């Protein structure tokens, strides 16, 4: 836990930023802390704008907001190496932005445009950026859990010092694939950090309805996997837990399970009337909003001033306005490219093209 500079042992008030930075937890630097704050703010503003665009029908399909949970992706990804592998579920905007994926390309992907990070093939739930080792949001709950274990197997086999961060929700732990994945990862001592975002709900199901235990970390025990619980509303707590987990993995000790206790402030998706939880509960959790909470920490520790934080927010707002403008002005994918990328070597490009042309032909006029 962070020491309060006002009550530290010497009783002296810190005089310079550097003096304070030395007391930051988990060996964090002031710059890293500012960066984490920036990332959380970016995600928040990104999603506020995504929600607005959704309401304007500029973003279609399903949209799952991460608002309230930003500390989990940001703390965890900051605690990993830049080239550690990341996989996550469909509530994936946070992972992408925390990993530093291009903001405009992410927004354009939500808009389904050619300039999107997956050229409009995936949309909101399937952001991915292989060159940043972000292997995607995955819309099939739990499906990426063994895939993360497989990537970890490859890291071990290739003797690369990288670990895999695999994010999923409490709901995923009811799925068989979760257990198969944890079993193999533990059995083979694989360098993968399983990060369970326990936000108390899987769609409309409460924890009590979906799981016989309310602490997800208990499920790691059966696989002899070390596990910690952290405060998912506190970026420092998440950072500390994942730092410990990643070190454990990187030193060859096998997988690690991190449970982040968190809460989504918004509905499961944009079409959720939220009848399964009461407003008072939401209000209580909103008081734990990880962004102002970490902002206070930065100010208390003189890492940033209030004005600097306000500026971060203003800049993020401007950045997202620009991202929306960019997405909105971007071209749609060319229909003639719809059959592209199914195979490395197109199997029968002519036939594929012909099928597309036929599909696009207007119905023949009745004769």
């Amino acid at each position: 836990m962070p020491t309060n500079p006002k009550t530290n042992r010497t009783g002296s008030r810190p005089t310079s930023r550097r003096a304070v930075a030395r007391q930051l937890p988990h060996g964090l630097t002031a710059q890293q802390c500012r960066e984490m704050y920036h990332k959380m703010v970016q995600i928040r503003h990104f999603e506020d704008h995504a929600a607005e665009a959704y309401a304007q029908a500029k973003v279609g399909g399903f949209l799952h907001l991460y608002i309230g949970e930003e500390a989990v992706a940001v703390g965890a990804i900051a605690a990993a190496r830049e080239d550690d592998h990341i996989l996550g579920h469909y509530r994936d905007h946070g992972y992408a932005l925390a990993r530093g994926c291009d903001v405009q390309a992410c927004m354009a992907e939500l808009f389904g445009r050619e300039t999107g990070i997956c050229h409009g093939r995936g949309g909101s739930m399937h952001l991915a950026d292989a060159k940043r080792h972000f292997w995607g949001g995955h819309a099939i709950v739990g499906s990426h859990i063994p895939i993360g274990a497989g990537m970890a197997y490859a890291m071990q086999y290739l003797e690369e010092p990288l670990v895999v961060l695999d994010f999923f929700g409490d709901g995923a732990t009811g799925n068989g694939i979760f257990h198969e994945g944890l079993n193999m990862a533990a059995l083979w001592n694989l360098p993968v950090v399983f990060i369970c975002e326990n936000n108390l709900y899987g769609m409309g199901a409460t924890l009590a309805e979906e799981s016989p235990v309310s602490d997800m970390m208990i499920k790691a025990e059966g696989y002899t996997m070390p596990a910690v619980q952290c405060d998912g509303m506190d970026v420092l707590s998440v950072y500390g837990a994942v730092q410990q987990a990643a070190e454990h993995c990187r030193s060859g000790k096998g997988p690690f399970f991190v449970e982040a206790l968190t809460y989504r402030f918004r509905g499961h998706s944009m079409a959720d009337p939220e009848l399964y939880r009461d407003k008072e509960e939401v209000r209580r959790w909103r008081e734990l909003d990880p962004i102002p909470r970490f902002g206070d920490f930065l100010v208390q520790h003189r890492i940033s001033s209030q004005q600097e934080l306000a500026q971060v927010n203003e800049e993020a707002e401007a950045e997202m306005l620009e991202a929306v403008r960019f997405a909105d002005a971007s071209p749609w994918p060319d229909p003639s490219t719809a059959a592209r990328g199914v195979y490395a070597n197109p199997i029968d490009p002519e036939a594929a093209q012909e099928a597309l042309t036929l599909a696009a032909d207007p119905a023949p006029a009745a004769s």
Partner: protein
Amino acid sequence: MAQITYVEAIRSALEQEMRRDDRVLVMGEDVGPKGGVFGATAGLFQQFGEDRVIDTPLAEAAIVGVSIGCALAGLLPVAEIQFLDFIPPAMDQIINEAAKIRYRSNGDWGCPMVIRAPCGGGVHVHGALYHSQSLEALFAHVPGLKVVIPSTPTDAKGLLLSAIRDPDPVCFFEHKALYRSLKEEVPEEEYLVPIGQSRVARAGADLSCITYGATVHEAVAAADRLARDGIEVEVLDLRTVRPLDRESIVATARKTGKVLVCHEANLAVGVGAEVAAIVAEECFQQLDGPVMRLGGPEVPAIPFAESLAEVYCLGPDKIEAKLRQLAAY
């Protein structure tokens, strides 16, 4: 050249490719010291060690999932599913993950992996409902996958080498009845049989019989019987059911004007329906009779009792009868 069986050809392909490229791994249930229930990985564990010949827990979905992860991270995994009948738990990984990875990334990343599984049954060689199925149509339906079903030891080796080197996920289904029933001279050195290219198993000008897998041998036997009456049947072995070799299907259909498609798998909504549709679309003018099909009846899998299994399975008699019916047009 040595005479080897189908299963030895598979083993030899795995061994050669593992020796050539240390990114190639094999994983599955009991593929290690035991060498797999059919012996397809015999000796590989001893030669390449436990890091490359991986005994997995009984977890089909994760066998495929972990293989996908390995593929994403630069390895070339060959997953063995002990019987094709056990693959349904892994369908999500195959259809939702492996098949879509290239497309979802607009070609940015791929999933080079092979999923091997023994398939099929027969009147004497099957284990009934859950050890005999031919489920290839389920996979052939999915763009992003390739589905290969070799019928000879030579093809088994050459196609498996191609499958391992393919940049996309390949389902490689091996008919159990073929494993030890035929021997053939197979080149010891490496050679590639291209995926998506069929083979004329028997040339003929009067009728075409389009098939694949173990049924190829039954079709050739039936064709030999018709030849005694001067009817020459061309047997086309598809070798790959996704992608289909449209060109050769069309060529044989145009040549003979009469086409029978047959397979052991259930007839309805099967591979044969797709082949028949191609012939109907492309060869309408050249056809001298209806495109006929022969396949498994409306029964979910091969029943155990021999008398019932006979109803399910094809065999040269049924194929011969159907060919004669077609010849009469």
